[in-house]
């Protein structure tokens, strides 16, 4: 496929510049319709990849703190860092999502109904519940930290929140928020995403965890908080998470095969390879594996976080390019790629 289509600029109403006449335009030799994409590219703007990233961090951080506590970690600084991280991300996420709507004032319609098979519907619910619960947990934390003042009603009320139980309840929703964004992309007609349906969720979830871990360790290292032991565990967790994430991503790329081309296109290649694969996975892994030092940990966390964002960004934008390529859609919409179901096997 020529790169011409990468250059095709979207214009009014999702219309695109087209190629020209068969006889004068070599591009027409493809059996497509003047190079006009048969499906439409998504309408999402900068808020969405940013939310995917933040939501992931929040979810990751919660999963980490909750499970760590389950296995008996009582390091207050660590818990505090995790809970506040989650709180912040959960405050920003809805704002970003609403901003991206065509009719923001109607955001609440998201909670009109529950649709099991619509990731966006389930995601909205999960996000609301998770946001609520993690909010409560963070409040309890705040009370404990005396941020709500001492022995006043609010403080006492907040103190009464069963934070352990709450964070446990929030755990599945946290997982969901971390994973559904990938599933949401996967269950569309965009070849690059749909092709990798099975692994999109897992990949995003693993990235959620790694970025969550990095966020916490970043905070702890910056403030010089936390017990050595927890920092040790964090470092260990980060390393393993990166390995898991890398293997999932590798598997994804194999699965995407030719439909993953956009990730290596002129536009996204540098960001994906340089930013995510090398900068966001290999480099931090190296940093974390070698001799330990505060600066190295800091750098690693930052790199993971950036890599995590670029993963979301290139995945979302890659979908755009994928949708713009008629051949991608045509070659993908073939019998052999149909999801298995009785009627049509």
């Amino acid at each position: 496929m020529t790169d011409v289509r990468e250059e095709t600029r979207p214009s009014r109403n999702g219309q695109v510049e087209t190629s020209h006449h068969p006889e004068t335009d070599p591009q027409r030799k493809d059996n497509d319709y003047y190079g006009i994409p048969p499906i439409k590219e998504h309408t999402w703007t900068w808020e969405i990849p940013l939310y995917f990233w933040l939501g992931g961090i929040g979810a990751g951080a919660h999963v980490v703190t909750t499970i760590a506590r389950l296995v008996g970690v009582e390091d207050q600084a660590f818990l505090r860092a995790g809970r506040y991280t989650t709180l912040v991300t959960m405050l920003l996420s809805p704002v970003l999502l609403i901003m991206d709507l065509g009719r923001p004032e109607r955001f609440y319609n998201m909670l009109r109904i529950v649709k099991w098979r619509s990731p966006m519907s389930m995601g909205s619910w999960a996000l609301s519940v998770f946001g609520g619960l993690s909010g409560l947990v963070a409040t309890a934390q705040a009370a404990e930290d005396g941020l709500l003042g001492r022995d006043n009603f609010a403080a006492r009320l907040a103190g009464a929140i069963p934070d352990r139980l709450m964070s446990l309840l929030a755990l599945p929703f946290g997982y969901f928020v971390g994973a559904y964004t990938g599933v949401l992309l996967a269950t569309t007609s965009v070849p690059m995403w749909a092709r990798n349906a099975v692994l999109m969720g897992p990949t995003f979830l693993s990235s959620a965890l790694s970025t969550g871990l990095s966020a916490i360790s970043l905070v702890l290292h910056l403030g010089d908080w936390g017990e050595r032991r927890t920092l040790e565990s964090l470092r260990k967790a980060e390393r393993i998470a990166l390995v898991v994430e890398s293997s999932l991503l590798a598997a994804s790329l194999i699965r995407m095969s030719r439909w993953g081309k956009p990730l290596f296109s002129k536009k996204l290649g540098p960001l994906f390879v340089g930013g995510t694969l090398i900068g966001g996975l290999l480099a931090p892994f190296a940093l974390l594996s070698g001799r330990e030092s505060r600066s190295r940990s800091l750098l690693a966390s930052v790199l993971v976080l950036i890599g995590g964002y670029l993963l979301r960004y290139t995945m979302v934008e890659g979908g755009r390019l994928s949708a713009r390529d008629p051949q991608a859609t045509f070659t993908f919409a073939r019998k052999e790629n149909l999801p298995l179901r009785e009627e049509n096997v």
Partner: protein
Amino acid sequence: MATGFLTDTTVCIGCKACEVACKQWNQLPADGYELTGDSYDNTKQLSGTTWRHVAFIENPRKRRLTGDVDLVALAEDVKEQLPGGAEIDALGRWSFMSDVCKHCVEAPCQQACPTGAIIRNEFDNVYIQPDVCNGCGYCVSACPYGVITRVPHDGRAFKCTLCYDRQKDGLEPACAKACPTDSIQFGEVEDLKVRAEERVAELHAKGYTNAYIYGTPEVGGTGGIGGNHSKFILMDEPETYNLPRHPFLPQDKVHQASVASIVTAGVLGAVVAFAFGALERGAR
């Protein structure tokens, strides 16, 4: 009762009356004024502001005849020997195809819509409730036919309503009404199915053996979405008309995707637990 369309491209004269009738009835704006050079197609594709779109496919085939005049000539279905023993291959065609929302039987857009704005109405048509849609844009990526877009100046997603308002008043859709050659036929899906089969048989009998139906799961490749209520009679490969050969229902992947995610969740949980020393702590 389910209503739908049968668009018989073999009798479409490319007059675009359907496109105009739709825009007028639904008071849709023009998409701008640009000469594309793509045959006579200057609106290019379906969108939130173009709910009917007529495609123009030029494939005249050249041939050399005695008197060496190089051009498109003679009948499509001339089989018999010609005077002067001239060779005549099929007439190059200029085909027109009036595209529209397929009103999928298992509609990806409808299943994707988080607000429930997209419903199946009493005519079993896929309908976007403009008073509910909040412009999340998810249906845009879900549609395997690139039918929907989110309209910038409005923020909501739009597409063919199958003239819900007209049907309620017992009128046929504006586009079908305007079509001078009955290329667009509106009716009950079951009847349309029969009509389509009859027409294709007729075409085959006439020697147009490349004619086929697109949109009934048994025949076309649309089984992945249970077929379409908007059916088409085509003469070329689907791609020629910018149609996917085997559209599928993205939501069919939700199941696998969820299972995989849950498994991963478990694994990652274990990773964290392990890293935070579940073992040695547990030992104590």
